[in-house]
């Protein structure tokens, strides 16, 4: 048994469903292996943990426009390949169900229940005009690059997805 918990830190930079699934699969596995896991969300990765329902209320014309075209939310994620105007994710969802694989929503909830810390990057939130309440309830808290690097420095495994 490990004296101190080993750490796994993941940066989720991408906002596609397939990449998000990969990040959450590794995060939940890490937590199952007794690791202390943090996922740091930045840029397009923030879309994965945005609320599905509420529209983001951001200030300024550019940010408002940006959040209309980049709405995000787990139900709006695309695939990196074969997105086919949204048919790809629907089909992948069907196939995932067939093999009893958890959906991205189930993965997010499961990760949070297992103690995985879900942290949006403050700077990209500021850049994109995202208030803290733009994110779903599973999110731990906003954090900066220094927090991430301090976690990464102590981590045995660090991944950038």
């Amino acid at each position, binding site marked *: 048994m490990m004296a101190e918990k*080993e750490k796994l830190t993941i940066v989720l930079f991408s906002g596609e469903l397939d990449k998000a699934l990969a990040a959450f699969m590794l995060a939940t596995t890490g937590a*199952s*292996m007794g690791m202390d896991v943090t996922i740091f969300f930045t840029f397009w990765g923030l879309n994965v943990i945005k609320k599905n329902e509420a529209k983001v209320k951001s200030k300024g014309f550019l940010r408002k426009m940006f959040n209309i075209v980049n709405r995000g939310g787990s139900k709006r994620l695309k695939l990196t390949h074969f997105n086919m105007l949204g048919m790809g994710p629907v089909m992948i969802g069907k196939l995932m169900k067939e093999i*009893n*694989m958890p959906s991205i929503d189930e993965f997010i909830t499961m990760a949070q229940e*297992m103690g995985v810390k879900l942290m949006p990057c403050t700077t990209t939130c500021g850049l994109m005009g995202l208030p803290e309440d733009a994110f779903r309830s599973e999110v731990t808290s906003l954090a900066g690059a220094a927090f991430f690097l301090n976690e990464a420095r102590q981590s045995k495994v660090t991944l950038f997805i």
Partner: protein
Amino acid sequence: MKADKTLDCVGLYCPMPIVKTAAKIKELKVGEILEIQADDKGIKLDMPAWCQTTGHECLGMEEVGKEIHVYVRKKHD
């Protein structure tokens, strides 16, 4: 091998058998044996790896038809 508890993971793919094993092992007392039944071949490498990281003991596995039954002894709380 006689197990104290059994976990059915048939039909589940990685990482679910590992996630479920981590949760289930909490129900056992130290020294007891958990039997994990799965049909995803990944478990043959994943369960020993999980044991190596968590410090529990992988006692062995047997193939029963298409299923793989893995035995894990709980070594600590």
